[in-house]
């Protein structure tokens, strides 16, 4: 807070007569103009913080982020309406080709927003329950119907599990959170979770609610309810420590970020594209993560847009931007060495011609 204030004061101080010798001050990047992008709504609260931070460093800049959803965001990027977007899924081959054509250059794509997805439940007096992946999939599939079922009790000695029906609450709208969660289950326990991975919940007949806040309020209002939601939004609910290998890991931003840095990068893409095939079984990491990509062009038609996108993305990857994201949106800080790699790509953003 104090840092931000000092920065904005410095910016104010250097503003009036700073035009010729602006290079001296740390925030005197001389950026100005308006930049409007959009996309994944999962990134909205983080983007809100980043926007505010970036604008306070550059008082003449206005950044807008329209949380249209990832699909619409990608469409708008390909049509050129959004110069930068957030998307819960990486561009597929077809979209990538179209986007490269629109940009007239390579596309820059990396996971800029990483957020643990918590499996949250509402049981009176119980804050944490251990579940291995088979159990999680069994519960959400509807095979395990009671909280004191043998499968749950086996990993929770000493916890007084009630004889209560389990009510599963999932997202009713298509969502990157759902896609990540079901992808986790179908990767780790394909025998139990034998559904296709899609952004809509595959099972009919269960309770559901719209949006993260809808799921959280429904789980909170019920008894014996269980759902999945962005970990930063779950409030006072109890959470499941997820079984990875032989241990049970509680969610944390650091444990979530570790998944990305230890997962293999998808090959056969341009140098500036970092898409990942997430590995869900690395001990010590929290395997259920929502990875949302930041996507931009390597070159833009006009200088102003290029400078603004470069400025915004550099700010997000900076120490300050990362701290800001963790503090206000619970996003996991990107691992140091990956950040350096992404930064080289972002630094190369320029105007065409």
């Amino acid at each position, binding site marked *: 807070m104090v840092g931000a204030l000092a920065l904005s004061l410095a910016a104010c101080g250097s503003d009036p007569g700073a035009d010729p010798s602006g290079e001296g001050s740390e925030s005197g990047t001389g950026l100005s103009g308006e930049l409007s992008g959009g996309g994944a*709504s999962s990134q909205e609260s983080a983007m809100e913080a980043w926007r505010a931070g970036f604008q306070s460093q550059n008082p003449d800049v206005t950044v807008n982020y329209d949380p249209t959803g990832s699909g619409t965001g*990608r469409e708008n990027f390909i049509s050129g309406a959004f110069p930068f977007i957030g998307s819960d899924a990486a561009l597929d081959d077809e979209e990538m080709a179209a986007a490269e054509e629109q940009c007239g250059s390579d596309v820059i794509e990396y996971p800029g927003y990483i957020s643990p997805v918590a499996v949250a439940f509402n049981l009176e007096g119980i804050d944490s329950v251990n579940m291995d992946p088979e159990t999680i999939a069994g519960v959400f599939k509807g095979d395990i119907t009671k909280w004191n079922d043998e499968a749950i009790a086996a990993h929770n000695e000493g916890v007084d599990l009630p004889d209560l029906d389990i009510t599963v609450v999932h997202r*009713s709208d298509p969502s990157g959170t759902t896609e990540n969660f079901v992808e986790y289950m179908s990767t780790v326990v394909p025998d139990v979770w034998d559904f296709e991975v899609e*952004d809509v919940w595959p099972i009919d*007949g269960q309770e*559901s609610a719209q949006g993260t806040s809808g799921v959280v*309020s*429904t789980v909170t209002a019920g008894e014996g309810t269980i759902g999945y939601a962005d970990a930063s939004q779950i409030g006072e609910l109890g959470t499941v420590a997820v079984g990875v290998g032989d241990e049970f890991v509680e969610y944390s931003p650091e444990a979530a970020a570790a998944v990305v840095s230890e997962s293999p990068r998808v090959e056969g893409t341009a140098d500036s594209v970092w898409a990942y095939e997430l590995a869900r079984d690395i001990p010590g990491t929290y395997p259920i993560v929502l990875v949302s990509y930041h996507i931009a062009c390597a070159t833009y038609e006009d200088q102003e847009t290029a400078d603004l996108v470069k400025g915004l993305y550099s700010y997000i990857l900076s120490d300050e931007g990362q701290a800001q994201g963790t503090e206000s949106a619970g996003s996991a800080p990107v691992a140091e060495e990956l950040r350096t790699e992404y930064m080289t790509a972002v630094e190369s953003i320029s105007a065409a011609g």
Partner: protein
Amino acid sequence: MTTTDSPQRPARPGDHAERAPARRRRRGTTERGFNRVFRWIATGAGAFILATLAAVALFLLIRAWPALTASEDELSDAVGRIPEGTSLLEFVGPLIFGTLLAALLALALAMPVAMGIGLFISHYAPPRLAQVLGYLVDLLAAIPSVVYGLWGFLVLAPVLKPFWFWLGENLGWFPLFAGQVSATGKVLATVSVVLAVMILPIITAVSREVFLQTPKLHEEAALALGATRWEVIRVAVLPFGRSGVMSAAMLGLGRALGETMAVLMIISPGFLVYSLEILAAARHNTIAAFIALDFAEASGLGVNALIATGLALFLITMAVNMTARAIVARRKDFSGAN
């Protein structure tokens, strides 16, 4: 509304027939000039409505066309919710059913209450109370639907839950209350209650006005024959107001059919099932709520499929309105209005 006014329309020019020429003579040509301008403004406004309607219909048709003509495989690839081997009709059918069921239930709940309020205001309440009550009911209409949604989802659903359980346990043999009762109360029954509250103001307002227009002569004649107040209402007020109440109901139904936000926020949606079990989770969804639910993440053919469901809603609403018009027009001859 317009249909109830229409019988008066031809009468009006007749009333002013003697006075009108005199005024025209006095004012001279300027009045005639503005007359012509106003005539064009009014005609333009009328044409504008037609043009808007045509534009919406055209938009729906054009944008829905790719989905209507796409093969089943293409559809299930583009829309996650449509499983393989399901046609668009098989997918939209349950949505249409859910939309109609929710709206009709809401209407069934709202009608008796709305007529009760209307009659109370027009025939029972002291004038000052009637005024305040009328104002309060109108105020209900000013609450945005997203607020109704929040209220229904956060307050009403938990409150109604025990009642739904009671219904399920004791009246489970009745098809509407059969099945496993939802543990969260986010079901079609709750949606119908909220929709009923939302359509209450419009139905009340219209039926109140209709009841107030009952000719005093009819009422006094009934009283003179020794009728009690209830009998006056039964033999004079209700028959007179029947067509007006009908059109009030249709206005309410129209609103309930198209309501989006409140339904979206309350219901645990279900797809591909025709079910009467209004207390069970994930058995129904309405078209408008489905479009709002999926539009944010839809792309390509998915958008076309959503617009195709929108086209279905457009057609249903039109059919409902036309049926209502037909009923009202037929009943008019028999009511006491003429």
